[in-house]
């Protein structure tokens, strides 16, 4: 089904009605079999050997050229971005969070937790994509924004907010992909898109399971219980309309066959960008607005008062309890 149809809210019987068949994506949550538990997903998403952003970028693109700096304070190594060539699509801007595969790399990149200057670098590159009419691809993989005092002092909250707001209005197609761990606002700052995809074992949560356990059960050992309750696994996100499709991973997880995983990401990305590229920018921005506008569950006794379209496609529906 064409994305243009999706913009018009048309439905088809194939798939869940908005993502093309040939992407190899999982778009119907009901079709997921042999699922892992959420806690197993948490562990797979954090697996040290899991392909991280730089490895994925190297596999997805030709000739990646990294660009540095926020033009204000520092170049943050936890955020990697630049220009890359994608087969059949052309040049794109890519912005990613990079966690390490070793302790040394993790220390150098603050465990993939960006500082404010990381988000400000991201914003600068978003604007570059807009100026030069290049599609934007983001790769999300972070435990969250860095929580240290310098990050607070330099405006972690402001940087995240501005990054989200910039993506909301950015006049170029955006595909965001949750690679591993999507930790809270620090992940969302890279994850506002026209299409949001997740690897099959990725997670995306408002708070880490450990954090939630400490607050809700007053015990960090209840993390598994929190992971279940938070519905942070990719399959849950698909059901909730937060992601539009899942990119299949090899049976043992992405790290057991990085090449196959990256291949699956690449084919999904090419199909999405090809289609998004044909949509006039004004329509794209309207659809992006509606995408987020309709996420959430509210109960309202006077449904006539709810200002939402009557006919919504599945993935844009306000979920309501029956």
């Amino acid at each position: 089904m064409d994305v243009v149809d999706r913009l018009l809210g048309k439905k088809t019987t194939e798939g869940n009605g908005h993502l093309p068949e040939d992407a190899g994506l999982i778009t119907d949550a009901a079709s997921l079999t042999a699922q892992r538990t959420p806690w197993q997903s948490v562990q797979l998403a954090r697996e040290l050997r899991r392909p991280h952003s730089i490895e994925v970028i190297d596999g997805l693109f030709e000739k990646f050229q990294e660009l540095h700096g926020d033009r204000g304070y520092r170049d943050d190594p936890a955020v990697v971005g630049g220009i890359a060539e994608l087969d059949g699509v052309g040049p794109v801007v890519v912005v990613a969070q990079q966690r390490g595969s070793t302790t040394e790399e993790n220390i150098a990149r603050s465990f993939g937790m960006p500082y404010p200057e990381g988000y400000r670098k991201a914003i600068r590159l978003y604007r570059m994509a807009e100026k030069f009419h290049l599609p934007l691809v983001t790769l999300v993989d972070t435990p969250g924004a860095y929580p240290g005092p310098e990050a607070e002092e330099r405006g972690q909250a402001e940087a995240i907010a501005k990054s989200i707001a910039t993506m909301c209005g950015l006049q170029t197609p955006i595909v965001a992909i949750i690679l591993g761990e999507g930790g809270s606002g620090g992940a969302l700052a890279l994850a506002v898109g026209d299409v949001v995809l997740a690897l099959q074992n990725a997670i995306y949560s408002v708070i880490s399971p450990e954090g939630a356990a400490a607050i809700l059960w007053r015990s960090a050992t209840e993390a598994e219980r929190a992971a279940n309750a938070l519905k942070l696994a990719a399959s849950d996100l698909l059901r909730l309309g937060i992601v539009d499709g899942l990119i299949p991973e090899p049976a043992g997880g992405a790290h057991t066959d990085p090449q196959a995983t990256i291949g699956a990401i690449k084919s999904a990305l090419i199909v999405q960008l090809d289609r998004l590229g044909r949509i006039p920018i004004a329509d794209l921005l309207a659809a992006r607005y509606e995408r987020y506008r309709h996420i959430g569950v509210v109960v309202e006794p006077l449904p006539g008062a709810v200002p939402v379209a009557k006919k919504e496609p599945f993935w844009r529906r306000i979920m309501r309890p029956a």
Partner: protein
Amino acid sequence: MPFGRQRKEFPSHLWTQCPTCGEMLFNKQLVRNHNVCTKCDHHFRLGARERIELLVDKGSFTEHDTELTSGDPLGFSDQKPYPVRIQQSQAKSGEKDAAICGTAMIDENAVELAVMDFDFMGGSMGSVVGEKLTRAAERALANRTPLLIVSSSGGARMQEGTLSLMQMAKILGALHRLDEAGLPYFSILTDPTTGGVLASFASLGDIIFAEPNALVGFSGARVTSETIGEKLPKGFQRAEFVLEHGFIDQVVPRAQLRDRIAYFLNAFRPSARDLRWSL
């Protein structure tokens, strides 16, 4: 009862001790002074309804979206099921959720006003708060009026998981449209404004006010402190500290807040020749 929270902290129903100066304050007098210590200007928290009364022209507030309540999309249960928690909070606070929105006049300027309510589950933002704030922004856009949001929140509501997180993008999408239309958005930070609320709409006002000594921070001080394993700088995450670091326009005592907002509403109001707000 405006003193739901303070009463818990201070046993007497008649008196409240000021945590800053130690003065014993007669509750009725404290309410008359909008919950500010009459001796040292310590700002106690103020309920959402009292906040609205403080800010708007008398009798001008028309509430919207009064019937919106939370679903339970995750089937969430910690110590108790989420729907029970909601019901208990509703019973205790008399509010449906953690934000009250409506149209009002401030110094004869029509505005959309949204006030978060810390008494309702710590002012946490789930789908209802996200929906109400987004509708408020959309009304401001439709009516070409300024928008004011008074924040008071611990952050996103865990019980709605990633759906709560998405409310940040939803509200910011609406605020972006307001900004493009040239309409002013005022963000007013009260104690506490933290987490996902600060990391979205609260940080992006055209003008950002904060109340004295309000806690304003992204990460919990506990988390931050553990991250560095040492003591935090003095005044860390307090309004005055955040002002010095460049993220707040003014720290405004509660007694002056209404007039200060009115000043900027008037300054930003388009002149007769300028049709931009009256689409």
